[in-house]
């Protein structure tokens, strides 16, 4: 597959139109699965890993027709292409460059469903959807899992459930995470309070790129910790209840901002657009922070000429690997900052033009 063909498009999950999409960017569910009778990653020889790849490749030809999967071999990709897949949320940084030996990822053209092969577990299934869509994501991934299982024999234990390389994933093997945009809770300094409450009820909070990543642009992922002793439905219900509460807090905070300091917010958003459309050098971090302000401005109806999908696209297209793919060659740090500024300027000019 030529990855360049993905470049002009956006994964379905970034459409920005799903339920509660003023706050919820996307919903992701992943399932960890291992093949019975083959050693796990730490004990697997390259031959074992090649066998896992061969078996999974055979199984994905039987994936549900809604999600026809195409396999991409990671060791054959350039460093830039691997990073590109990380930015599109299709593979982990681990799979990109932390691991060795046969490994890869299969995904469908809408980038909704994907299967990482030979990451920490033999298979990591993922479904990624726009907006708050836990039920739809579970329905999709459950089907994909069933379809793959008709050709694969999973390691399963009567008492412990699906067996995983790390004991923190055993049981359902399921991690459901919801990516939230919480700028108002950040501005009103309530965010830490919310997260302390989450940790008490055993939910994890992480940044855009998962474990260990910083939360840029007020984007946070909330996910379950526990995978053993609760059914998938129960886990999803618990997360749903928490997200609904956070949604209410964020919306209240947004209303409070409008009521108490609309003028100041209007100014902050206008300055953000000003910087984004006139800077000649800009870092990824600053871009995320400014886009966060613009995104909030759109949902507070302080600006109306920029579509929210456009902002979502900029979040992804201004990351390092995407910029280099757009440029058609590799760029060093300073060149990237210049390319990013130029790209933002062009895009914002397109959207600011009066529409016919």
């Amino acid at each position, binding site marked *: 597959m030529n990855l360049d063909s993905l470049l002009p498009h956006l994964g379905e999950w970034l459409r920005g139109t799903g339920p509660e999409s003023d706050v919820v960017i996307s919903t992701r569910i992943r399932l960890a699965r*291992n093949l*019975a*009778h*083959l*050693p*796990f*990653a*730490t*004990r697997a020889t390259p031959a074992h890993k090649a066998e896992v790849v061969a078996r999974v490749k055979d199984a994905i030809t039987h994936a549900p027709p809604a999600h026809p999967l195409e396999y991409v071999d990671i060791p054959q990709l350039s460093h830039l292409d691997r990073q590109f897949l990380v930015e599109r949320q299709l593979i982990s940084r681990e799979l990109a460059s932390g691991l060795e030996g046969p490994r890869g990822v299969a995904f469908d053209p809408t980038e909704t469903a994907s299967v990482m092969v030979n990451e*920490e577990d033999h298979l990591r299934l993922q479904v990624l959807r726009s907006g708050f869509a836990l039920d739809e994501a579970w329905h999709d991934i*459950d089907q994909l*899992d*069933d379809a793959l*299982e*008709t050709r694969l*024999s*999973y*390691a*399963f*234990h*009567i*008492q*412990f*459930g*699906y*067996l*995983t*390389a*790390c*004991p*923190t994933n*055993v*049981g*359902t093997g*399921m991690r459901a995470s919801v990516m939230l945009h919480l700028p108002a809770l950040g501005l009103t300094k309530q965010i830490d309070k919310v997260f302390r409450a989450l940790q008490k009820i055993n939910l994890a909070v992480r940044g855009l790129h998962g474990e260990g990543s910083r939360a840029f642009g007020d984007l946070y992922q909330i996910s379950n910790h*526990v*995978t*053993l*002793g*609760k*059914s*998938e439905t*129960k886990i999803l219900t618990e997360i749903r209840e928490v997200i609904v509460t956070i949604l209410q807090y964020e919306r209240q905070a947004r209303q409070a901002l409008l009521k108490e300091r609309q003028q100041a917010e209007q100014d902050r958003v206008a300055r953000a657009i000003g910087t984004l459309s006139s800077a000649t050098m800009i870092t990824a971090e600053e871009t995320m922070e400014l886009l966060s302000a613009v995104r909030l401005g759109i949902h507070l109806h302080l600006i109306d000429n920029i579509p929210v999908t456009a902002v979502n696209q900029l979040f992804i297209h201004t990351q390092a690997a995407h910029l280099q793919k757009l440029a058609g060659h590799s760029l060093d740090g300073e060149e990237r900052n210049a390319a990013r500024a130029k790209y933002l300027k062009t895009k914002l000019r397109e959207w600011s033009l009066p529409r016919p």
Partner: protein
Amino acid sequence: MKCQRCPKQATLHITEVLGEDRYEEVHLCEECAKKYLLEPQKKSTAAKPPIADDSEDAEAAPTGPVCDLCGISYIEFRNHGRFGCANDYEAFKAELLPLLESIHGDVRHLGKTPRRMPRSQGAQVELVTLRRRLQQLVTEENYEEAARVRDRIKELENS
């Protein structure tokens, strides 16, 4: 007195000094004693991982139990946090229960089960039992029966 690791008569009696005023007696036959002495030294209690100690498993060697399929020991697993194969869950079951309880607050899966479970599940359970039986037969030097069990394991693994 019997050897603590095999059914033979224990001929060697070793006293391990675990720390101040803490001793452990180990009774082994000559053969097992040789292996025992070649194994890494038992660490003092303070250096042990928190989960591994309390178990009074008579088989507990200095490395904890070892998986006969992938060869990793319980201590290796605790050091790296990753299992070597699916069989580890059975091989380290006694040690795992308190660990899983502390991670998940539960030790029993309640969710989805594979559709193919009846067949593959049955085979997995049989495999686990057969592997244990095979070990026992080898220690008993019942090689004829052991060979038959080994053939059955191969058959199940390849199905």
